[in-house]
C-alpha cells in the first residue's frame, strides 16, 4: 500500500514545529520584537495561495467571486510582506554595538 502524500506533509509539519522550537529558543530576547515582525512577514507566504486563486481560472472572467477573494488576499498579504520585512530591516538597523573608545 502506498503512503498517502498527506502523511508526508504531516511529517514536514511536525518536523518544522521542532525546528521552529529550537530555532526560536535561540533567538536573543532583545530581538523578540523583530522576531514577531519577521514571522509576520514570512507567514504572508500565504500569498502563494492568493496568487493561485486569482490567476488560475477562466481568463475570460478574471473577476469571478473566487478570483476577487484571491486579489483581496494579495493586497493584504502584500501589505504584510513589504511592511513586515521593511519594518524588521528598519528595527534591526538600529541595533548597534558600543563604539570602541578611542
Amino acid at each position: 500500500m502506498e503512503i498517502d502524500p498527506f502523511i508526508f506533509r504531516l511529517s514536514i509539519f511536525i518536523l518544522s514545529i521542532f525546528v521552529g522550537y529550537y530555532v526560536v529558543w535561540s533567538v536573543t530576547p532583545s530581538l523578540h520584537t523583530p522576531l514577531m515582525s519577521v514571522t509576520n512577514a514570512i507567514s504572508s507566504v500565504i500569498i502563494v495561495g492568493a496568487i493561485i486563486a486569482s490567476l488560475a481560472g477562466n481568463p475570460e472572467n478574471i473577476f469571478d467571486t473566487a478570483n476577487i477573494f484571491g486579489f483581496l488576499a494579495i493586497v493584504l498579504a502584500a501589505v504584510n510582506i513589504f511592511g513586515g520585512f521593511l519594518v524588521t530591516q528598519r528595527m534591526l538597523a538600529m541595533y548597534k554595538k558600543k563604539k570602541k573608545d578611542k
Partner: protein
Amino acid sequence: MSPNILAIFYLISGVLFILALRGLSSPETSRRGNLFGIIGMAIAIGVTILSIGNFSIGFVYLLIFLVIGGSLGAFIAFRIPMTAMPELVAGFHSLVGLAAVFVAISAFLKPEIFNLGYSGNIKIASLIEMSLGAAIGAITFTGSIIAFFKLRGIMSGSPITFFGQHYLNLLLGLLLIGLIFYLCTTQSEILFWTIISISFLVGVLLIIPIGGADMPVVISMLNSYSGWAAAGIGFTLENSALIITGALVGSSGAILSYIMCKGMNRSFFNVILGGWGATDQSSIKSSKEQKPVKSGNADDAAFLMKNASSVIIVPGYGMAVAQAQHALREMVDALKKNGVKVSYAIHPVAGRMPGHMNVLLAEANVPYDEVFELEEVNNDFANCDVAYVIGANDVTNPVAKTDPQSPIYGMPILDVEKSKSVLFVKRSLSPGYAGIDNDLFYRENTLMLFADAKKMTEEISKNL
C-alpha cells in the same frame, strides 16, 4: 514547471525562512537573516507565478494589487514610530488572518483550481483543512483587531468581562467543531459562511477579557494563531513552503507566549481567562495614605546619580508612553561623561510586546551590549548605587517575593530594592496594572520623582 521542481523551490523558500529566524540569534547576523527571508519570499512568489504561466490580463491585475499592497506596507513600515510597534504587529497579524480566510473562501468556491475536487464534492481532508484554516484565520483577524484597538487606546485597556463568558466561548468552540463535521457531510456553502462568522465572533470574545498589560501574551498568541492558520491553508494547497512557515510561526508565537507567561509567573490559561485589575482596589487606596513617602526633585536625583559609581536604568511601559527613550539616552550620556557606569535592565514583560523596550532603546541609539535581561543583571543591583526606574512598576515590586497573598507573588522581579538608592519616576502613587500597591514606594532608600518620565529625565540632564 513540473510540480516536483515547484515543490523543490517551495522547500528552498522554507529553508530560507528557517535561516531568517536563525539569524535573529544575534544582532550581527540578524540583518542577513532578514535578507534570507526576503529572498525566500521572492522565490515563493516568483515560482508560483511562473508555474501558473498565465500572463494574460489577470497577471496585470495581480501586479497592480501587489504594488498597491506593497507600497501601502512600505509606507507604513517607514512612517510608523517605534513606540507604535505593538499596534503595528497586531495590525499585521490581523491581515494575515484575513488573507487566510480569503484564500480559504476562494478554495471553497473554486476547489478545482487547487485540485481539491469540485464544488459540492470537495475532498473531505481538504474541507477539514480549509475550514480549520479559515476558522483560525478569522479568530486571528478579529482578535488582532481588538488587540490593535486596545493598544492604540481606541478601546479601553481594561478587561471586559460578563457572566458566563467562558462558557459561551466553550460553547462556540464546540459548535465550530460540530459545524466543521457537519460541513464535511453536507458540503453546504451556508455552513461554511456560518463557520467563518462564528470564528469572527470567537476572536472578539477571546480578546476582550484580557487587560492592557497582558498584551505581550496576547500578541504572541495571535502571532502563533496566524502561523497555524497559514499551516492549515498550506495543507489545503499542498504547499510545503506554507506548511513549514506556518509551523515555524506557530511555534515561535507559542514560545513567546510561554516566555511572557513565565515572566509574570502565570499560567497561559490564567492570562487568557481574564485580566487582573479586577481586584479590590478600594482597600489598597485606604491603606496607602498612612505610609510615609520620600519625594524629591530633579536636583536631588541629579546629585545622587552624579555621585554614584554605577547606575542601572529600569525602563517600562511608561517610558514608551512618555516617549522618553531619547531623553533617557541623553541623560545617560551626561552620566557617562561624569564617569558613571550605566547599564539597562529589562524585565521580560516590560512594555506591551516581547522585546518592546529593547527596540525603543535601540532606536535611541543605546548600544545593545549595555542592555541586559533579568537573569543577567539581577545580581548587579546589590552592588549598584542608584536604580533609576522609569515607567516600570509591577516588575519591581518586592511584594512578589515577600507576600504570598499578593496576586503577583512568585513573579520574577528586578531586585531594584537591593540597590543603595532607588529613583522612581512616576506621575503619582497609583498602583500599577496588577492593581496592587508597590512596596518599593515606601522604602527607606526610595526617592519618588513625581513627574512625567520625559520631563523629569530632561530636567535631570540639565542638572548634571
